[in-house]
């Protein structure tokens, strides 16, 4: 069965691929899998009807850990009926489509500008349908057929849901196939969202049911008949899915809109098959769940409401197709009541009527399609008198119409009789109320059916109808599907007893007690009398139809209410989304930061609430008086940096804080940190000034200070929280730091006495590798932005470019002889010191970082002395090469051990005994540090040259976008 379903999707791919080339012939690909299915059904039918269903399971996601998805199919009698309808009508629709899309109407201007379309304009332009993309259309159509087949065969909630949603999706594409039409797009969207949303409710309901029943198999769930609150909720959800799919009141509104689709789609999806999915579901579940509290009220009320509303609306339509669409809502309402009420006889009648409905509704739609296709109109006012012109069409439509009206000797009559009888004979207390409504609904059905046929085929009422005269006669192949289906209503009606017996075997699949009989003549009984009432009532309605039509169109307003409610909620969602998003995603960075700080505060508060308390016994005011004093001084500078309204002052105070930090590091026993901090702070000040030199010294006045107190409060509270947290975490250690092992291993195994440096280049060298890469990235990021500045300068030489005046480019007098001379003296010393620090770092404070930063400081001095010119040839070396080289050294040093079977970054110690040098210890990690040194130099050079003197900075871009 999976293969069979699969062939539809293969056909869909073929259709999509060849649709443009083959034109209407592409429908052969649509027909092929239908034929295959029909053949398969024929082969399986005898066994299935004898009560031995065919099953197949395909495990999609295996169930080792409890979660499993399986595609499970089961062909029982009811499934056979539905599959037969899907494939049989599908085949006819495919044949029909070939004529519908191919015959005389080649578009005048193929695939050219698409004129704005007039929605359901009374007279459409010739060839407006052939403009649709036949590849997409046929692919969606055949994919739909496959999905529908999968749906009716599904025996697993996952399988059911998969195909359920697929039918919604394919229906979306089919309704919106004429996508230049705004109304079609809207209709498609409404249909998708209503049925898709219902599908999600269905999913939830099914999962709940399956968990209550302990199985995902539908037959298993039905057999388990779970009960309880969860089940009641689940049932509501399942019914929500079913009623939306079957366009039942109050979700009916999408169906008339769906008539935007080409007629074959309307006939196939929106009358014969897809809308029946809900009926199928209700029919399957009714025997097991009709007795749950929510079931009957929902099913009966919605069904009857749809019956009456649809009938009323159908009477008022002036468009032949819309009249049928409303009729579909009405008849589906009746079907819902019948299959859902949970009375075996009614179930039987419902299934028979389902067959009858498919047989009469599809040809009626197809007939409208023929007329529309030949005459380019569906307006009753422009039609009439077609019986003489196209008698075959009229006769076939007539048979179908009679069946729809429930008149003998059609199948529709037999089934309606059975339905009335089933309800009348049942023992439910409210049967007469239901019957009454059904009678009224049936009378309306009678009336609109008669009206429909008479207005099209009956004698003309309007003399100005000239369209009819111009229409060419439809080809035989075009009318054939209509005729076949129309006359089937008659034939099946005449053969209603044998047909009824087959239907009985099918109904057993749902409910073993539903095996009833069908006949044209069951004697004079309640049902027959009621039919008489229906006919009489119908005639009365026809008589007074003009009166009815003149009255205020209550039905229209009620009918629109669903659509309006939907559109309102759609708009509500959209505008609500905008309001919410406008509020949450304000686009303002200060707000974002404040909110983030607020969340941090909340987290800290939560920690305090759940008992985060410092152990104050381990807390002293300060570790030393000096530390206390430095802390106080730093305190002052922090406040200063935060409040001073001037850029340079703030930068300098930040620098002061940095130096204070260095002092604290020093006192804490962290000379490496102090050294690095000092260097970094110094370089930071230079970079700050380089970047900000042109900005006004004063900060712009804050735009709104309303929030200032709030921001201060939040941030201040975060500060308090952090202090609390620090005191808590710092006084309650549960484990030991690995520093002890590091101290033991540092010299023995790693060959260095400076533990911090050994950690950096060896124990935790990977951190360092990442961190130098971060540094390299920062440098190339700076260079990249500098290149962007240069690009924009070259393009727009307006302000603030003119105001821009780098320090070394103004008057010669800005150079300083003194600075030049001192720089010359100091620079070599700086370089020597850097080399010293780098190589000494393994044993004493220093290392590649510190060394590289010292060089950076030296470069900064030179740069400040005279801009890039003072860097001489150094400024011409692309700093990226230096960076790349340094990175290469470091990473290669880390990788080489892998080649000799050691670990990544594993360092080796070589004790060399050289003739002159004596014993020399070489640690391979030193090369790693050398790479760091080189890289840091490159980074400093890049930042200085790129951020500093951008006019003379070396161009690092390969080509400038121009």
């Amino acid at each position: 069965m999976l293969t069979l379903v699969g062939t539809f999707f293969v056909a869909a791919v073929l259709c999509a691929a060849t649709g443009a080339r083959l034109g209407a012939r592409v429908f052969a690909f649509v027909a092929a899998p239908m034929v295959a299915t029909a053949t398969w059904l024929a082969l399986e039918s005898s066994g299935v009807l004898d009560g031995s269903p065919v099953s197949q399971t395909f495990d999609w996601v295996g169930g080792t850990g409890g979660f499993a998805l399986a595609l499970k199919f089961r062909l029982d009698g009811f499934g056979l009926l539905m599959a037969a309808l899907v494939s049989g009508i599908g085949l006819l629709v495919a044949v029909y489509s070939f004529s519908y899309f191919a015959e005389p109407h080649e578009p005048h201007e193929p695939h050219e500008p698409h004129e704005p379309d007039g929605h359901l304009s009374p007279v459409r332009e010739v060839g407006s349908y052939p403009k649709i993309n036949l590849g997409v259309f046929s692919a969606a159509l055949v994919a739909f057929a496959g999905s529908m087949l999968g749906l009716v065969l599904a025996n697993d909630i996952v399988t059911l849901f998969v195909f359920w949603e697929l039918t919604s999706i394919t229906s979306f594409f089919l309704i919106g196939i004429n996508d230049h039409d705004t109304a079609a797009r809207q209709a498609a969207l409404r249909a998708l969202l209503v049925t898709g949303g219902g599908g999600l409710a269905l999913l939830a309901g099914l999962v709940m049911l399956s968990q209550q029943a302990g199985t995902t198999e539908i037959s298993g769930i039905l057999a388990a008949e779970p009960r309880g609150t969860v089940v009641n909720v689940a049932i509501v959800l399942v019914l929500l899915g079913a009623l939306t799919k079957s366009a039942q009141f109050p979700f009916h509104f999408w169906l008339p809109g769906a008539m935007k689709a080409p007629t074959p789609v309307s006939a196939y999806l929106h009358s014969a098959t897809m809308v029946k999915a809900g009926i199928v579901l209700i029919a399957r579940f009714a025997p097991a769940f009709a007795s749950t509290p929510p079931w009957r009220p929902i099913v009966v009320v919605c069904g009857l409401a749809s019956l009456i509303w649809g009938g009323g609306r159908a009477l008022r339509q002036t468009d032949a197709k819309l009249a049928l669409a409303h009729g579909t809502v009405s008849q589906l309402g009746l079907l819902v009541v019948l299959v859902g009420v949970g009375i075996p006889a009614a179930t039987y009648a419902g299934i028979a009527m389902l067959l009858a409905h498919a047989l009469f509704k599809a040809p009626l739609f197809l007939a409208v399609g023929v007329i529309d296709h030949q005459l380019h109109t569906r307006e009753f006012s422009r039609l009439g008198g077609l019986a003489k012109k196209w008698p075959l069409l009229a006769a076939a439509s007539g048979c179908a119409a009679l069946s729809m009206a429930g008149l003998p000797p059609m199948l529709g009559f037999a089934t309606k009789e059975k339905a009335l009888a089933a309800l009348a004979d049942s023992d439910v207390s409210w049967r007469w109320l239901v019957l009454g409504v059904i009678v009224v609904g049936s009378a309306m059905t009678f009336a609109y059916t008669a009206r429909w046929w008479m207005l099209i085929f009956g004698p003309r009422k309007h003399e100005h109808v000239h369209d009819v005269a111009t229409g060419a006669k439809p080809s035989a192949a075009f009318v054939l599907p209509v005729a076949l289906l129309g006359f089937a209503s008659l034939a099946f009606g005449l053969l209603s007893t044998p047909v009824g017996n087959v239907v009985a075997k099918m109904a057993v699949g749902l409910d073993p007690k539903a095996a009833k009989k069908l006949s044209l003549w069951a004697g004079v009984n309640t049902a027959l009398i009621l039919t008489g009432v229906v006919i009489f009532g119908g005639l009365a309605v026809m008589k007074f139809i003009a009166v009815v039509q003149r009255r205020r169109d209550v039905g229209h307003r009620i009918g629109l209410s669903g659509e309006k409610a939907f559109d309102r909620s759609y708009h509500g969602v959209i505008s609500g989304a905008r309001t919410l998003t406008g509020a949450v995603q304000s686009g303002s960075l200060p707000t974002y930061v404040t909110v983030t700080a607020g969340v941090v505060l909340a987290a800290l508060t939560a920690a305090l609430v759940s008992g985060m308390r410092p152990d104050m016994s381990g807390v002293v005011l300060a570790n030393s008086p000096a530390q206390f004093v430095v802390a106080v001084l730093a305190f002052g500078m922090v406040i200063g940096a935060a409040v001073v309204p001037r850029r340079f002052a703030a930068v300098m105070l930040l620098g002061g804080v940095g130096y204070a930090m260095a002092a604290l590091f020093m006192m804490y026993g962290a000379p490496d940190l102090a050294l690095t901090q000092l260097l970094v702070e110094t370089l930071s000040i230079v970079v700050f000034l380089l970047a900000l030199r042109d900005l006004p010294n004063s900060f712009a006045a804050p735009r709104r200070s309303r929030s200032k107190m709030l921001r201060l409060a939040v941030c201040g509270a975060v500060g308090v929280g952090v202090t609390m947290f620090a005191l808590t975490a710092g006084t309650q250690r549960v484990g030991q730091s690995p520093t002890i092992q590091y101290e033991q291993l540092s010299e023995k195994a790693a060959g260095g006495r400076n533990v911090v440096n050994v950690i950096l280049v060896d124990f935790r060298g990977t951190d360092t590798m990442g961190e130098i890469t971060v540094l390299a990235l920062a440098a190339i990021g700076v260079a990249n932005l500098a290149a962007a500045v240069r690009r924009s300068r070259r393009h727009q030489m307006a302000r603030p470019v003119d105001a821009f005046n780098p320090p070394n480019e103004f008057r010669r007098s800005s150079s300083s002889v003194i600075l030049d001379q001192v720089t010359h003296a100091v620079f070599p010393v700086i370089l020597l010191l850097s080399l010293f620090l780098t190589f000494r770092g393994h044993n004493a404070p220093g290392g590649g970082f510190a060394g590289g930063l010292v060089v950076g400081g030296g470069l900064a001095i030179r740069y400040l002395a005279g801009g890039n010119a003072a860097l001489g040839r150094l400024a011409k070396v692309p700093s990226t090469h230096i960076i790349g080289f340094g990175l290469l050294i470091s990473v290669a040093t880390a990788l080489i051990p892998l080649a000799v079977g050691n670990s990544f970054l594993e360092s080796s110690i070589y004790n060399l005994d050289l003739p002159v040098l004596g014993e020399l210890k070489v640690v391979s990690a030193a090369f790693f540090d050398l790479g760091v040194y080189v890289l840091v130099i490159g980074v400093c050079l890049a930042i200085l040259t790129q951020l500093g003197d951008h006019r003379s900075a070396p161009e690092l871009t390969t080509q400038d976008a121009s």
Partner: protein
Amino acid sequence: MIADVASTGLIVLGTLLTLVAALGLVRLPDFFARGHAATKGATLGLALTLSGAAIQMSDRGDVAKLALAVIVQFLTAPVASHLLGRAAHRTGIALSDHTVLDELVDEPDPTFVAKDLK
């Protein structure tokens, strides 16, 4: 012992000189006067302290480095005050009321506008 005394004396003296520099920084009336304090006091003060420290060092390398640091301080301190002073003058920072003569003429620059420099 003598070394200890000498060292301590030098350090105390040096520290007091840096204190004088800092005092001058606070008490003197204009930027240029403060520049005198910062340059002279700090330089000699630091030189004395580092010399005092050098006496205490056993490692020759450390002594050498301290000496180097002193030399570097003599080289760089005047440079800093020179550049800051020139910048201050060019940007039109007010001289104190005690100033009687200003012979330094910055190059005429028609576009010169003193920005807010505070």
